[in-house]
C-alpha cells in the first residue's frame, strides 16, 4: 500500500535498515535453531561438526535419553508447582512491599528502603541460611524453595518506581474523598492499573523459579520432590561416577543430550513470552522512561 512516493534516499535507508534487522534477527535466531537442530541430529554428526543448520540424520535418540529418566515427569510437575506457587508468593510480596514505599506519606519510608537495600549487598551466606531453613522445619518441603529469597529487592524497586509514576497522588486523594480507605484503594484502583508491571514481575519471577535448582539441591532430600532442573542436570552428567562400576558411557552423546535438555528446559517457559510480551515492552518502557 503506497500512500506517498518514497524518495531514493528513503528507499535506500529502508532497504538497508531492513537488511540490517534481518541480519540481526538471524544472529539471534541461528544459535537457537542450531540447538534445536542439534538436539534432533545424530550425536556423532554433532560431535564431528557436521550439523550446520538443519538436523543431520534426524533421530529422536537424544530426547529418548532425556525422557527415559524415571524421575523426569514427577520433576516436571514439581517445577510447575514450584513456579506457580513461588511466583504467586513473590509477586504478592513484591506488590505489598512496593506500594507502601511508593506513597509519599508512608511512615518510615526511608528506613524500610534502607533495610531492603542492605540485603542487596549483604547476605547471611549459604550455611546460616540453611540452618535457618532447618530450624523453621522447612527442609524437604515446598516452602524451603518458594519462601527464602522469594522477594527480590531489585524487582521491588522497579515496581515502586512504577507505582510512583503511574498512580499519582491526585488519584489517591479523589478516591479517599469518595470514601475509600488505603486497602480499598490499593486493591481496587492501584492494582488494576498495574497489570503491565505485574506481567513483567510474573515473567521475571517465573523464569527465576523455573530455572532455580540450587535451593532445591540444598534443601530437598527426597527425590520425588526434585525440580526438573536438578534432574536435567543429572542426565547431563550421567555416568560420570568415579566408582568401580562407573564409566563415562554417556561421553559420546553427552554434547547432544545437552542440546536436548536445553530444549526441554526452555520450551515451556518460552511459551509464556507471547502472552506476556505486550505487557512486557509496555511495563519496562514505563519503568525506565519515567523512572
Amino acid at each position: 500500500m503506497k500512500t506517498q512516493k518514497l524518495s531514493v534516499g528513503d528507499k535506500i535507508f529502508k532497504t538497508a535498515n531492513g537488511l540490517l534487522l534481518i541480519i540481526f534477527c538471524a544472529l539471534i535466531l541461528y544459535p537457537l535453531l542450531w540447538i534445536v537442530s542439534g538436539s534432533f541430529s545424530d550425536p556423532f554428526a554433532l560431535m564431528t561438526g557436521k550439523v550446520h543448520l538443519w538436523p543431520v540424520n534426524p533421530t529422536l535418540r537424544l530426547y529418548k535419553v532425556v525422557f527415559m529418566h524415571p524421575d523426569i515427569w514427577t520433576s516436571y510437575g514439581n517445577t510447575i508447582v514450584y513456579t506457580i506457587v513461588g511466583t504467586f508468593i513473590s509477586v504478592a510480596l513484591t506488590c505489598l512491599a512496593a506500594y507502601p514505599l511508593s506513597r509519599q506519606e508512608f511512615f518510615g519510608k526511608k528506613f524500610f528502603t534502607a533495610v531492603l537495600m542492605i540485603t542487596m549487598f549483604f547476605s547471611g551466606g549459604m550455611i546460616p541460611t540453611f540452618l535457618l531453613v532447618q530450624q523453621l522445619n522447612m527442609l524437604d518441603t515446598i516452602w524451603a524453595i518458594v519462601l527464602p529469597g522469594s522477594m527480590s529487592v531489585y524487582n521491588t524497586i522497579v515496581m515502586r518506581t512504577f507505582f510512583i509514576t503511574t498512580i499519582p497522588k491526585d488519584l489517591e486523594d479523589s478516591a479517599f474523598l469518595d470514601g475509600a480507605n488505603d486497602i480499598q484503594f490499593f486493591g481496587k484502583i492501584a492494582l488494576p492499573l498495574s497489570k503491565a508491571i505485574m506481567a513483567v514481575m510474573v515473567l521475571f519471577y517465573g523464569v527465576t523459579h523455573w530455572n532455580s535448582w540450587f535451593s532445591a539441591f540444598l534443601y530437598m532430600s527426597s527425590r520425588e520432590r526434585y525440580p526438573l532442573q536438578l534432574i536435567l542436570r543429572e542426565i547431563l552428567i550421567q555416568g560420570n561416577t568415579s566408582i568401580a562400576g562407573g564409566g563415562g558411557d554417556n561421553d559420546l552423546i553427552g554434547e547432544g543430550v545437552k542440546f536436548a535438555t536445553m530444549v526441554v528446559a526452555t520450551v515451556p517457559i518460552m511459551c509464556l513470552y507471547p502472552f506476556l510480551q505486550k505487557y512486557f515492552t509496555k511495563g519496562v518502557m514505563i519503568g525506565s522512561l519515567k523512572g
Partner: protein
Amino acid sequence: MKSKHLMVSLVLLGLLSASFSGCSSSTSSSSTSSDAGTSTSSTISSVSSDSAQTAPAENEYGVAQISPTPITLRIYASKGAGTPDYNDMEHMKKYSEFTNVFVEWEQPPQDLSTERFNIVIASNDLPDMFWNIKEDQFTQLKTAQAIIPVQDYFANCPNMLQVISDHPEMENYIYDPDGNAYSLPFFDGLTVNDPMILRKDWLDKLGMELPVTKDDWYQYWCGVRDNDMNGNGDPSDEIPLSGTSFDGILSLVSAFEMDNGFFVDPSDGNKVKYSFYDPRYEDYLTWIHQLWEEKIIDSDILTTDSKTLTNNTALNLVGSYRGKLNGQLNTFMTTMPENIEGFELLATEPIMSDNGVQFHPGSVPLVRTDTIGGVVTVTSEYPKEAVEYCDWFYDFSDPYGGAFMNIFGYEGVTFQYNADKTDYEYTDWVLNNPDGLSPQQALQTMTTRCQHPSYVPPIGSFKMWHPATVASYENNEPFYTESLKYKIPNLTFSDADAKTVRSIMADVTTYVEEMTAKFMTGEVSLDEYDTYVQTIQSMGIDEVLDIYNTTYSVWNQPRS
C-alpha cells in the same frame, strides 16, 4: 575469590562446631542424640510388633540378623548421577528386613556433595555413617574427631575380614600407624586405570609391534605424524599424542622412573621424592621438549579437555593418549567403530625406562584412597550395627552376596548362569537394552553399583564392557605390585606440618607446572634448568620433603 574465602571460613566454622560437639558428647550433643533416639524408638515400636518375634534366622541371602529389634540408621550416601533411590531397591529392602537394620538415606549427587557435606556438618546433626566421601572430607571429619575408629567392630564381619586377609599388602592402607582404622575400606578391583591408549589399527597399518620403550613409542608417533593414517588425503592432520589434560603429559615422567608429583623411590631406600625437583626431571623435560618441537605432542595440549579429545577422536585424528579403561577406551570402542572403519584401541603396557624399569603411573591401591568407603560418626548410637550392616557388601559370592547383587543384580533379570552354572553373564536386557539404555544405565536402575564400603573384583565391570578393556587391563595388571611401590598413600600430617606443606606447595605446584609447560614449548630454554631448581629450593621444597619422609617412614612400618 572473596566468596571462596568466605565459604572456606564458614566450612571451618562448621567443622569447629562439629568437633566441639564431638568432644562434649555427654553435654551439648546429648540433646540431639536423645531426639534421634526418641524418633527411632517410635519407629521401632511401630515395626517391632509384627516382625521382631518372627525374624527369620535363615533367609535366602544367608545373612545373619544384626539387631534383635529393628533399628534405623541414618546414612549419608553420596552417589553418582543416575543411580536411583536406594529406598527403591528390592535387595536393599530385603537385606534390611533380614538384618533388622533399616536405613534412612540421605543421597546427594556425588559431584555436588561438597556443598551438601558442608551443610550437613554445619547443621551439627551428623548421620550415623557417611558413605563414599572424598579424601579431604574424610580428613576433615577425622581432624574434627567427628568419626570413630571402627577396627574393634570388624570382629563380626567375616566377609570383610576375609577380603582383608586375602590382601595382606593392603594392611597399611586400612590401618593407621597407631593401629586404628577410621574407615570401612572400599576395595576397587580396577587397580590399573589410566593407561596409555593407542590406535591398534594404525599400529597394524604401520606394521609395528606394541611399543614398550621410549624409542618404540617415538617410532609409532613419527609414523602417525608422517603418514595419512585416517586416509582423508591430508597426511599432516593426525595428532600423535594428545590427552584429556596436561597431566597426561606430566605422567610420562614414569618413563624416567618417577611418578608425577610426590612419589616413593624404591631404588633409593624408599625415600619420598618430588618429580619436579628430581635430577632426572631434566632428562624428561629434554624429551618432551623434543616431542613438542617435532610436533608429536598435540599443540593444544595445555588447554585440552576430555571433550576436545572426544571430538578429535570422532574426527579420526588422535593417535595416542592416556585415558580411562572405563572411560575413553570403553566408550570409544562401543561407539566409534560404527562410524570409523577399522577403529580399534588398545592400552599398552607401561613405557619402559632406559634401565628397564616399567611401572604404571595410573595404578591405585586396591583400597581406594581418593574415595573413602564409609565412616561411622561419634554421635552414632549404633556403631557396631552400622559396621556390621556393611559386611554384606564385601561378599562377592553369587548369586546373593551383597557386592555381587549390587554389581550383577538379579538372576534371570540382569544376569544369567551358563549351562553348568560355573560362570555368569549379563543378560541381553543389560547388554542390548530395549529402551536404549547403556549397560551401565540399565544396571543402575536396580543396583547401587557398589558406591559404598564394598569389595568389587575387576570382573564385576568387565563383563559389560568392550573386550578391549579386558585385554588392556591385562597388559597393565602384571605391573600393579611394582607400581604400587612408587605410590604415596594419603598421609596424615600434624596440624603444623600440614600448614607448612600447604603454604609451601601452593606456590610450588603452580610454579613447576607453569615452568614445565614453558620448558616443553621452548618458551624458556633448558639452560635455565638450574635457576628453576634453585627457585623451587628457595620456596622451601626441602622442608616439605623432610615432612613427607618422616611421615611416610612412620606409615610404612608394618602394623602389629
